[in-house]
């Protein structure tokens, strides 16, 4: 399978990255090349092999169901490009 311009535009849109036609023309062969190289994985016989979920055996801990954090509104908003009235602000989404 080869990565064409339409595929690059589609995945860039899924990844929310604006991309120009010039960039698409440059990136499509690069991705095609990289994905072609990656495709050698298909030759490995993985019959009966479980996909890796944890490299080091470890159990997910449960903590007590109590409030451990909070009251940090100003700290949370401190790095926002734009914040008003204690909220993050974004362009209008509902007319």
């Amino acid at each position, binding site marked *: 399978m080869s*990565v064409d311009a339409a*595929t*690059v535009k589609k*995945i*860039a*849109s*899924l*990844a*929310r*990255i*604006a*991309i120009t036609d010039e960039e698409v023309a440059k*990136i499509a062969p*690069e*991705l095609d*090349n*990289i*994905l072609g*190289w*990656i*495709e*050698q*994985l*298909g030759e*490995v016989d*993985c019959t009966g*092999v*479980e*996909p*890796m*979920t*944890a*490299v*080091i055996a*470890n159990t*997910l*801990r449960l*903590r007590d169901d109590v409030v451990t954090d909070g009251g*940090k509104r100003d*700290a*949370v908003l*401190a*790095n*926002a*490009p*734009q914040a008003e009235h204690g909220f*993050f602000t*974004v*362009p*209008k*989404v509902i007319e």
Partner: protein
Amino acid sequence: MTDLTDLGVRDLRDGVRAGTFSAREVADSFIVAVSKAKQLNAFLVETPDHAIAAAKEADAARAAGETLKPLAGVPIGMKDLFCTKGVQSAAASHILEGFKPEYESTVSQKLWDAGAGMLGKLNMDQFAMGSSNETSYFGDVISPWRRADGGNAPLAPGGSSGGSSASIAARLCPAATGTDTGGSIRQPAAFTGIAGIKPTYGRCSRWGIIAFASSLDQAGPMARDVRDCAIMLETMSGFDAKDSTSLQLDVPKWEAGLNASLAGKRIGIPKEYRVDGMPAEIEALWQQGIDWVKDAGADVVEVSLPHTKYALPAYYIIAPAEASSNLARYDGVRYGLRELPEGANLQDMYAATRAAGFGAEVKRRILIGTYVLSAGFYDAYYTQAQKVRTLIARDFDRAWETCDLLLTPTAPSAAFALGEKSADPIAMYLNDVFTVPSSLAGLPAMSVPGGLDKVGLPLGLQVIGKALDEQGVLDACLAIEERAGFKARPDAWW
């Protein structure tokens, strides 16, 4: 008097304890060295006040007759991937330029609690994606090393922890933090003639480290010798409830446990690591390393890791897949850059922000990750890669039936010139061929300087251990270090 910047972590710590010099003298010496080395572009932010405050505290504690903290009097460099409260933490990216965290990463907090001071934030490949430090938004780090061939071609310090490696080799700091996802501590250590260890996955908390590929990311120390790495790693490691994959284990006393005798140890030499096109000098250094560990008492055995050739392609599915998910958070809303073209809606804002904020390599990896995770391809790519990862981990488990540690070169070449590989992503990726398999298996692995090539550039040897056997890894590297007697250092041309 000795130049204090020539001393490592152990000597600085012990010298301050003994009163041979003050912590303030140490901090001042390194602050001056950093300020004179701007040409290397290793530091993104300099924080002399932080280093001086820690030094004053150490000197005051000593004057009051108190027991000094484990790293009192030792100023260090902090990779820009670690969030440091009130100090820009940008992962060397544009999208996080100006981001000053309201919190401190667990690993950096542990270092400050142990008395260390911060000289500044170190340049790196953007979001830790790169092997040469050429993907930083803030410019390349220049290695302090130069080829002894009459030319002055600027060389790569390795990556992604290139600011860390360059600044330690140039004596701008005695030690620094690094992070390693596929070799980002070990390869830059090898390129610059220093030591660096990636511990077992889960030893160091990932909390507050800007995420790249969460199932692979591990912090670790870089320093000029094995003992200094052991000292740093003891402070950096330990359980953290804030990281769900943190290992709930006591931190061993690695420094006290150091032992350069390898009597009774079996060291495996993986035959699949003899790759085509490997320079003869690296082959020769590897053989030299084999002789050194034999001299230290180890038995050397050949082992097979049959799935080695599939480690890199598996890594270049798994790491971009995780990166595409982790980097989805940079949306121009909560922190960092916002690009809002005239009349743009919310979706346009996301796309414009991410287009402007991410560099070419980061975009490339997000796109690969998005592609391999997209509907219809998930099983063929991602699930298959995770199955291959199981086979790679199993290869190591089988090897441990006949050996205790593995010895390999760290990288397939010495440092290359800046620009030499940046046009070909796959050529760059192949630089991590010896470091990626142990990352995929979560194993501890360390690079230690072995010698110089014919143009005077450092080459490293790598020791890989069983999960949680950092002590075995450190010991074998110490045995190599003692025999290699590596004393070379770059001329201070900057």
